């Protein structure tokens, strides 16, 4: 019991364990200076992430430093950076786990830099948009009268694409991709894995439409299966697998060996949910319904 208490206090200690040098990429399109690296001394406490280190610099040493972040818990995918020569999420990278006295922080490679550590992701999102990453339905009735009920999908059908649905669009995969490094028009692992994700969803009927968009020279054929995208993916999505499965999907369709997947039907009735005994009522709304 005493040991456990001691361990808990040591985890939450505010004690400075060591001081590391943050070597940060600086660039501003307005000041006319070429990109450069600037050093900052950062006192490190247990549990500090690279993002915390950048916050420390911005709050105490240099308020002009620009970087992108939001959730601080590896969900939003905003703080992708090139940390000690690997694309990583700054909020998920513990400074002490890097086991280095100098931490080099640069913007993600394979993207244009807007300022300091902020990459321009507009091309990345354009590639994502180009593969129609949404459910496409062909039922004319559904277009006129959009369904309010859910589509029925079995757990097995969900399992076929669930892994790829965990993608947070952080852009690390494209930063690690050796093909994107030379071929800027290559669609990249994220967009291709997402194309596979929607092609494999039984609620979707857009495979034929996506096929036209994917059968271009800059499509999945450019992937050499280096696997760097999967290596750097912070969510374990394994986009390289998605790209290979997508190739298989297209090839088997082309050879006439792939049957179209079963289309998820629309639930005819809203499932009635009953409150289990002992579960309290929800608290009253803070905002009134209009």
């Amino acid at each position: 019991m005493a040991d456990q208490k001691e361990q808990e206090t040591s985890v939450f200690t505010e004690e400075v364990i060591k001081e590391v040098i943050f070597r940060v990429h600086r660039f501003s399109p307005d000041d006319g200076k070429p990109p450069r690296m600037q050093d900052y001394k950062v006192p490190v406490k247990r549990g500090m992430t690279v993002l915390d280190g950048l916050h420390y610099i911005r709050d105490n040493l240099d308020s002009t430093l620009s970087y992108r972040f939001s959730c601080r818990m590896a969900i939003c995918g905003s703080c992708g950076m090139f940390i000690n020569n690997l694309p990583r999420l700054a909020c998920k990278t513990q400074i002490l786990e890097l086991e280095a006295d100098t931490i080099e922080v640069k913007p993600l490679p394979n993207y244009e830099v807007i300022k300091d550590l902020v990459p321009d992701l507009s091309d990345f999102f354009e590639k994502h948009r180009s593969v129609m990453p949404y459910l496409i339905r062909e039922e004319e009735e559904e277009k006129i009268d959009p369904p309010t009920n859910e589509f029925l999908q079995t757990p097995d059908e969900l399992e076929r694409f669930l892994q790829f649905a965990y993608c947070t669009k952080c852009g690390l995969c494209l930063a690690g991709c050796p093909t994107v490094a030379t071929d800027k028009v290559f669609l990249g692992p994220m967009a291709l894995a997402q194309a596979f994700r929607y092609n494999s969803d039984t609620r979707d009927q857009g495979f034929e439409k996506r096929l036209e968009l994917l059968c271009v020279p800059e499509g999945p054929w450019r992937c050499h299966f280096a696997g760097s995208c999967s290596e750097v993916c912070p969510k374990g999505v394994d986009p390289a697998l998605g790209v290979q499965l997508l190739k298989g999907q297209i090839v088997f369709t082309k050879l006439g060996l792939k049957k179209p997947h079963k289309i998820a039907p629309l639930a005819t009735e809203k499932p009635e949910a009953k409150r289990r005994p002992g579960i309290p009522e929800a608290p009253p709304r803070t905002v009134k319904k209009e």
Partner: protein
Amino acid sequence: MREPTLWILHILAGIIILIFLGIHMGIMHLDTILTSLGVGYKNPLSWSSVLIRNKALFFTITYILLLGAALYHGFYGLRNILFELSLGKSAQKAVNWLLFFVGLFLFIYGGYAAIAAYVI
């Protein structure tokens, strides 16, 4: 829709290379084992052995198939590498035609050598 077809052919060419190159390596380097099993040639690198293979229709066909598969596989790979240099559409077209004609020329030249060795 041409890209998936080209890629499928690339994979098929790879399989053909694997099979025929396997046969070639077996004949060239496993002659002791093969001859003890009643197949293959003794001293496969000797002139008489080369002549015997050149006069066999099976080998002439496999040489031509292997040549075609290797040329296609190699040139498709080269095309991929060149396309990754962010070429424009017209440059891509030029690369396609250039590689097609160079590949065709080498195939005719190599095919002629295989057939000539069989016929003459």
